[in-house]
């Protein structure tokens, strides 16, 4: 079991070190996310009251688009020089590889959520009413997104057309997360009277199911 966690952290730290070195999230994905928020503002041509109302939904759509980029990047790390072959030859368990890669994507998603929260506060004039709900729902949604994204990234990784196929495969599956996270954030930002904790509970179930399924299925996907 100790070896399993060692392997998991080894893979996660490797992916995060590469991200820190290459600065793809900071220099490319984060500016893209801000651009999406600004463009939503232009497209809706709305006053701050309307933007505040739609802020939770716009926030999570922007996060989903960023997730696609983060997952594509996570997959490409293993595909470019066929490093996944080395991971298999080294005898790492597929579950530890999956959870390690999902953990790295999770950390990136948390960074982007914090960054974009600043964005919606500045551009849309929102404020956080329920800090606990905002933190917990953000963490749980990031977990659900990173686990599902990593799993579907592996599914698409062996295909020539993975860059274009991944969004088609992944976005419909993440629709429940988008709905749940939007409802929970609406509660946290005080934009609706929805019980955000109930939606956070549903997000937790989704995250646990995605983690369990990913840990079980990843080996089959990378072997094929």
């Amino acid at each position, binding site marked *: 079991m100790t*070896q399993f966690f*060692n*392997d998991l952290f*080894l893979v996660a730290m*490797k992916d995060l*070190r*590469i991200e820190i*070195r*290459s600065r793809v999230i900071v220099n490319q994905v984060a500016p893209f996310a801000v651009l999406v928020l600004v463009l939503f503002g232009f497209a809706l041509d709305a006053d701050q009251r309307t933007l505040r109302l739609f802020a939770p939904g716009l926030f999570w759509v922007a996060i989903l688009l960023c997730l696609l980029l983060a997952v594509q990047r996570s997959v490409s*790390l293993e595909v*470019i*020089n*066929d*490093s996944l*072959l*080395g*991971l*298999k*030859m*080294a*005898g*790492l368990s597929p579950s530890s590889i999956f959870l390690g890669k999902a953990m790295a994507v999770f950390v990136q998603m948390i960074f982007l959520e914090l960054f974009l929260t600043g964005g919606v506060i500045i551009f849309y004039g929102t404020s956080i009413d329920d800090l606990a709900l905002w933190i917990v729902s953000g963490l749980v949604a990031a977990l659900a997104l990173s686990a599902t994204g990593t799993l579907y990234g592996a599914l698409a990784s062996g295909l020539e057309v993975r860059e274009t196929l991944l969004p088609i495969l992944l976005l419909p599956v993440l629709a429940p997360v988008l709905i749940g996270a939007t409802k929970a954030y609406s509660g946290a930002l005080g934009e609706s009277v929805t019980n955000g904790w109930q939606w956070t509970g549903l997000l937790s179930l989704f995250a646990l199911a995605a983690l369990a399924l990913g840990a079980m299925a990843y080996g089959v996907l990378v072997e094929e």
Partner: protein
Amino acid sequence: MEVIQLHEAMVFLGRFPALAGVNLAVHTGEIIALQGANGAGKTTLLKLCAGLIPLDKGSGKVLGHDLDSEQKSIRRSVAMLGHTSGLYEDLTVDENILFWAQAAGLDRAAAYDRRDDAIQRMGIEERLRRLPVSRLSAGQKRRTSLASLAVRRPQLWLLDEPHSGLDQEGRESVDLFIKEAVKAGATVMIASHELDRINSLSPRVVTIAGGVVAGGEKQ
């Protein structure tokens, strides 16, 4: 001891028989070279021996492990260098080799020792150690790949076109590495198109054609 034993080994890629009944025995400490045209089955044979693709018919053992049921045990004891480097471009040479040492299950202290030993054996210059792999030449990358595999101290090396894309100095360093690996007790199987080079390296050359050992084995 027989490191590789294959009896009528068959591997299908889809419906195509990539290996159509290979019989082969390789002994400890041998350097065996595979030659043959593109698509003859050399890479498939290497992948089969690495436990990366399943055996569809026939039987075989690698390092005493059954090819049918013990592929994971085979993978841990074998190093395979394919057409790609297997390295992470944004990590430095040091970080790459250390990562692969730790991935092989070595603790931190042992991983550092093995990394330094492998770097020395592969003749990787000190100034390159802190450079990201993306800034290395093809030869330097190849040496780094070999070092990252050497940290596992494998008993069997499977090398697919190890000289391709290298200059004369790079080729010679790969040759030297192969000879030293064998001196250290490992067995090496090389697939190559470079007949002169593999003839000079190995007294045993096996010709693969149409997915079978096409006779003409030179000893």
